[in-house]
């Protein structure tokens, strides 16, 4: 039946049809609904059923635990500050968070996919699935207080300038979700950090509690940067009932995502592990190094649990397009992300969190790391050729 529907619609969207300007959209929806029955023309006659749609949908599934928990945490923080945590059911907390997040996700997808569809049509290419992940990541790595118009602006900037001008999914140098965050971080710093942005303050219909303007809630990392010792327990950090960007707070939820990504082989364990090793080692060196600041003396394991470290290591650093593509290069790439993230946290008083900048910075260096690894392969071959002669 679905096939018949698409067959019926096809003439309208084909060249010369009334709706031919939406051909890419039609094709995108058709390949979404029906697996293409295009058969191989040359080379291998048979193919594995893995494709980029499957890969992207698995990443989206891996993100869901963090998203669902993030929604709950939005309601939880709202009720906590309102002082009405005891009388609110968990479902109401979650539903409120869901209602806060849904418009963000919808705006992110509408703007991002709108641009992607337009560009695909213009280039006469198939729609790429890459934005399915990016579009979900962007609202998850922003503070809950980010206005929708700002989100839309950041999405448009990142899709156009971080992705499409390089040639689309697979060709970008920087992680588009992090570029969106960096864009807002530098353009609207007051809306991206500080103590006011981590709370949803408006009630939606009967859910949530309206909080007065000026209500503040500091993240543990914000407190550390402000040279005060946060009273967050390790348990809170692991469970994630602390303020922070929507998806980043719960280590358990991120861990579930990590297990999915590693089990399916979609994320590289080399990158992921190296980020933690690099970060843990650097934080430990600061611990024993004698630098007398609160953030430098924060135990190394707390550094790994706080802020966006886990989220960045699991979902951002492992983005195959922007990370190092050689197997040995992945160790260095991941390691230096961990090192830089902690360095920024400890040594830069302006930025409480360093994960975003560390990953973007290493995105830039990933091709250099690959160059060195590839060059070693080339030298090895040259040496062998010379010795054979």
């Amino acid at each position, binding site marked *: 039946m*679905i*096939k018949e529907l698409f067959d019926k619609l096809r003439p309208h969207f084909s060249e010369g049809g009334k709706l031919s300007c939406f051909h890419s959209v039609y094709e995108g929806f058709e*390949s*979404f*609904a*029906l*697996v*293409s*029955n*295009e*058969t*191989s*023309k*040359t*080379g*291998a*006659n*048979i*193919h*594995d*059923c*893995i*494709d*980029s*749609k*499957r*890969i992207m*949908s*698995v990443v989206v599934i891996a993100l869901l635990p963090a998203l669902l928990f993030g929604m709950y945490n939005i309601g939880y923080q709202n009720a906590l500050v309102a002082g009405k945590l005891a009388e609110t059911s968990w479902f109401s907390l979650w539903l409120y968070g869901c209602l806060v997040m849904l418009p963000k996700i919808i705006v992110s997808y509408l703007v991002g996919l709108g641009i992607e569809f337009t560009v695909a049509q213009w280039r006469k290419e*198939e729609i*790429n699935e*890459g934005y399915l992940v990016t579009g979900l990541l962007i609202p998850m790595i922003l503070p809950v207080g980010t206005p929708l118009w700002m989100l839309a602006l950041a999405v448009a900037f990142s899709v156009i300038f971080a992705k499409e001008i390089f*040639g*689309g*999914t*697979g*060709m970008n140098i920087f992680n588009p979700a992090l570029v969106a965050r960096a864009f807002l971080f530098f353009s609207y710093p007051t809306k991206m950090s500080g103590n006011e942005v981590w709370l949803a303050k408006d009630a939606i219909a009967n859910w949530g509690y309206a909080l007065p303007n000026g209500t503040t809630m500091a993240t543990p990392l914000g407190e550390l940067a402000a040279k005060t010792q946060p009273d967050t327990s390790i348990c809170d950090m692991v469970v994630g009932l602390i303020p922070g960007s929507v998806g980043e707070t719960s280590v358990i939820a991120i861990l579930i995502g990590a297990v999915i990504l590693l*089990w*399916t*082989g*979609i994320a*590289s364990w080399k990158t992921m592990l190296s980020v933690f090793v690099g970060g843990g080692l650097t934080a430990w060196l600061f611990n024993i190094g004698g630098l007398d600041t609160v953030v430098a003396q924060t135990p190394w394991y707390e550094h790994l649990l706080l802020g966006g470290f886990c989220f960045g290591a699991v979902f951002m650093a492992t983005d*195959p*397009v922007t*990370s*190092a*593509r*050689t*197997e040995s290069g992945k160790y260095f790439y991941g390691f230096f992300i961990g090192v830089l993230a902690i360095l920024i946290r400890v040594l830069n008083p302006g930025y409480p969190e360093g994960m975003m900048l560390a990953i973007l910075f290493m995105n830039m260096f990933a091709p250099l790391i*690959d160059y060195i690894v*590839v060059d070693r*392969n*080339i030298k*090895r*071959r*040259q040496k*062998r*050729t010379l010795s*054979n002669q």
Partner: protein
Amino acid sequence: MKVFKTKRGLNIPLSGIASEKITTASLPKLWALTEANWQGLQPKILVHEGDVVFVGTPLVTDKKNGIVVGTSAVSGVVKEIRRGERRKLLAVIIEPDGKREQVADLPTLSVNASPEATAKALCQTGLGLLFHRRPYDICIDGTRIPRDIFVSCFNLMPLAADFDFVIKGKEHDFETGIRILKNIAPVHLGIRPTQTNAEWISEEDADINIFDGPNPSGNVGVQIHHIAPTGKNDEVWTIDPAGVCLIGAYALTGKLNWERTIAVAGDKVTEPSYLRILAGSPISEILANIPLKETEDVRIIDGNPLTGTHTDVDAFTALRTTEVCAIAEGHNKHEVLGWILPRFKDFSVSRSYFSWLQKSKAKSLDCRIKGGKRQMIMSGEYDRVLPMDVLGEFLIKAIITGDIDKQEALGIYEVAPEDFAVAEFVDSSKLELQRVIREGLDILRKENE
């Protein structure tokens, strides 16, 4: 004997493997020497339609050097010289007279001949077309004596013919063939661990290397890479082991007998088994002996499903053909939301599908690409199935961008399209890797020659 253990690779369990049963086909009604046999050579036709030919009569030659010839495997009359666009020679089709008379003055092969004399005799008898040369993976032109000759005695590609079965009864032919090849250059045999005690293996005549690892460890290119990699100025020859038997049989009897035992496999074949048939026979003759289950939505492949070429009933097999497969085409399949389904019955290297639950169960795959072509997104996919010290992804990119220096530096002279067959299978971006490698090699050959 040296043992090379390779970890990278992938065995694909396809259903329809040929069972160990041989049917012998009668002499075909038509026979042809097709363009698949002179890959990389510019053919010059030597006969006209209506000419009477015998076994061993030269039909085509290499226009550039005129050393290698393609000879007839039957006696009869030239029925058609088939040409394509711009008069490109596609095939010489002969109607056999059923007698298989051989020309009188064919050169003989002897065990103690010089390298030049042996190579010349092979080229003149038409047996030279059994060889490919590396780098470039094309037919030899007979102008150079190779550095080495490599023979891989096993093939782990899905549905490929099992040489252990094919060689039965031809062991002496094989041994003689190796002794003939030894005249030209050192011979390296690549075997798998189970073949270590095979009686047809002699360490006196050849350097024996054991390759223990998943597909494509049976690819001769992988074996060359581990034993003695090829560079820009090298020339090594490769030949399939059943081809060595043909050479040995000719050396022993003086009769050119192009009969081969090929596997007819795939889940669209009624009874997947082996068929003894003249190389160059029509596919229709093969299917007359071992019929298809159905004729609609079937793809017939000359070769195995990973490296073979799409062919059809009217076409002819190549002289090097070791198997003919028939699998589902898949044009009629319309899977709704297939990319999110668990796909228990399909095959995937990715654990995101649940086919890993029945890992060893033979699967029935069709020819759908099952996804859209994309830029390279995932990294390391090719390297996981390429058991060579070659950075596949970077080599492919260098070829696509036309960076010849980089291609050379990254080892394009060490690879052949078939080495990337498994990588092409697992590629989630659905790129035509074998075509890319072939184009890269062709461009380099034009640059260098």
